[in-house]
């Protein structure tokens, strides 16, 4: 009898949970307590890391520091080039009157647990609703896209990885812009392109980047590299297998991307508005706003190309001495100055955690 009642109750709960959002508050309240379990099980590893860094020998630390410095130098060098390119892109886009760039902000999150179910590829990260994470938010690591947020809890959230068999992402071949859809296979090292014509120009080694067509992932982030293309005359489509560029089962630090969720139209309108304001405000259109920036970057570029090791770190001073951060968080918002509205989604959110968010704003990205 009791079994019957409880069984009916649980079936009813399942139906309600699947169909309506009635139970979401209860769930988030429960997760407030329960998600600590992941944190606790993660604790030994964290402690071990702490102890290891405490007792790590000085020479090791010096070596690591050296390595990080060179890496930083390289990335800074690349950033300077990127800044120039971004400026150029902005100007060309203005000439074309095409829609404005999107300023994306990223925030560092840490992985605290894997989903215990071996058939799903989901991870749990230590940022949640209270940190401004939203449903469907893209997650990156240093090398590429990892997945999207599928469940929000107050201080944690669940991320569905690209390789889960229920996940698909619109991509583009970087070489020629060919569009396709990459679906997960349930294998952490494997994505598959669905319904690619047999004659399509896809080759082994092609880089697939996100195309942004699904309105969920920002465009232009690397997703996977094509591993093999099989043309089977018995099959209607070519079989294209790709390997995700992100280290899906190895990354510990992830980046949450805060792209603004305005539509392209709104964005264009805002950009036009900004332009008008700028024109009305003081003479010159956008050029004066960008000029100091370009001057900066152009003066900085020769310094780096001559490769005086002292000069490049000097130009790197605005970036903070990021110790535990992955090196790929690009600093410097070069295009931000020319577009006040693009910074709005950033300022609308609670501006907590200045050390993490401040250097993490990327420059204008398509």
């Amino acid at each position, binding site marked *: 009898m009791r*079994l019957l009642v409880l069984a009916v109750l649980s079936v009813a709960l399942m139906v309600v949970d699947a169909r309506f959002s009635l139970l979401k508050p209860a769930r988030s309240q429960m997760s407030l307590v329960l998600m600590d379990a992941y944190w606790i099980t993660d604790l030994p590893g964290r402690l071990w890391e702490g102890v290891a860094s405490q007792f790590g020998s000085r020479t090791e630390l010096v070596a690591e520091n050296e390595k990080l410095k060179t890496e930083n130098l390289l990335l800074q060098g690349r950033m300077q080039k990127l800044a120039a390119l971004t400026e150029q892109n902005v100007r060309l886009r203005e000439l074309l009157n095409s829609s404005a760039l999107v300023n994306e902000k990223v925030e560092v999150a840490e992985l605290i647990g894997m*989903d215990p179910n071996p058939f799903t590829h989901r991870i749990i990260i230590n940022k949640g609703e209270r940190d401004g994470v939203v449903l469907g938010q893209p997650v990156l690591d240093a090398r590429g896209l990892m997945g999207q947020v599928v469940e929000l809890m107050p201080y944690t959230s669940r991320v569905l990885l690209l390789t889960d068999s229920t996940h698909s992402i619109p991509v583009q071949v970087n070489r020629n812009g060919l569009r396709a859809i990459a679906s997960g296979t349930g294998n952490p090292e494997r994505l598959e392109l669905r319904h690619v014509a047999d004659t399509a120009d896809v080759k082994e080694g092609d880089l697939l980047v996100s195309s942004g067509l699904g309105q969920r992932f920002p465009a232009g982030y690397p997703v996977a590299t094509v591993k093999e293309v099989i043309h089977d005359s018995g099959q209607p489509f070519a079989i294209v297998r790709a390997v995700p560029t992100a280290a899906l089962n190895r990354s510990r630090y992830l980046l949450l991307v805060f792209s603004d969720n305005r539509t392209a139209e709104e964005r264009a309108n805002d950009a036009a508005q900004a332009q008008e304001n700028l024109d009305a405000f003081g003479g010159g259109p956008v050029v004066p706003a960008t000029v100091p920036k370009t001057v900066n970057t152009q003066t900085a570029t020769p310094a780096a190309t001559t490769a005086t090791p002292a000069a490049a770190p000097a130009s790197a001073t605005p970036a903070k001495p990021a110790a535990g951060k992955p090196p790929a968080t690009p600093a410097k918002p070069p295009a931000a100055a020319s577009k006040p509205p693009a910074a709005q989604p950033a300022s609308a959110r609670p501006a907590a955690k200045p050390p993490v968010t401040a250097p993490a704003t990327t420059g204008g990205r398509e």
Partner: protein
Amino acid sequence: MVGVKASRNGWIVWLTFLIGMLLSVSPLPQFMEILRPLWLALLLAFWALYMPQMIGMVTAFCLGLAEDVLYGTLLGQNALILTLITFLVLSLQQRLRMFPMWQQSLVILVIFGLAQLVQLWLSALTGNRQPTLALVLPALVSALLWPWVSFALRGLRRRYKIN
């Protein structure tokens, strides 16, 4: 008078459930994920077997809800499974207590296997299609672990006089 004693040391039972919950989300190497024993179900089976006056289907239901939140499945899915397991254990309780250990393990295997099949069916209904019958493997591992878990918990029970 039983109730008085149970209320005195009942917290140990809840402590074991807490540990079971931690074990059920603790990270494992990739190849072992598929073999992860059903810790909560094992603990529930033991306590339902030896302390049916304290641990029943309602407890199982609540623990199942907690597990649902932990795993991110639909609320009620694991609750249904754990309730079912507890029901089967409770209905076999009188006989199960008399059985030798290997026979207990066998019964546990059957019960957990059934529960995992229901789990498979439920997750197929909710769209997370799970490819294989490998889902029954945890039941096997749990059955193999049963003698040890049972032995340890019995020791715990005697030590702290929980009844």
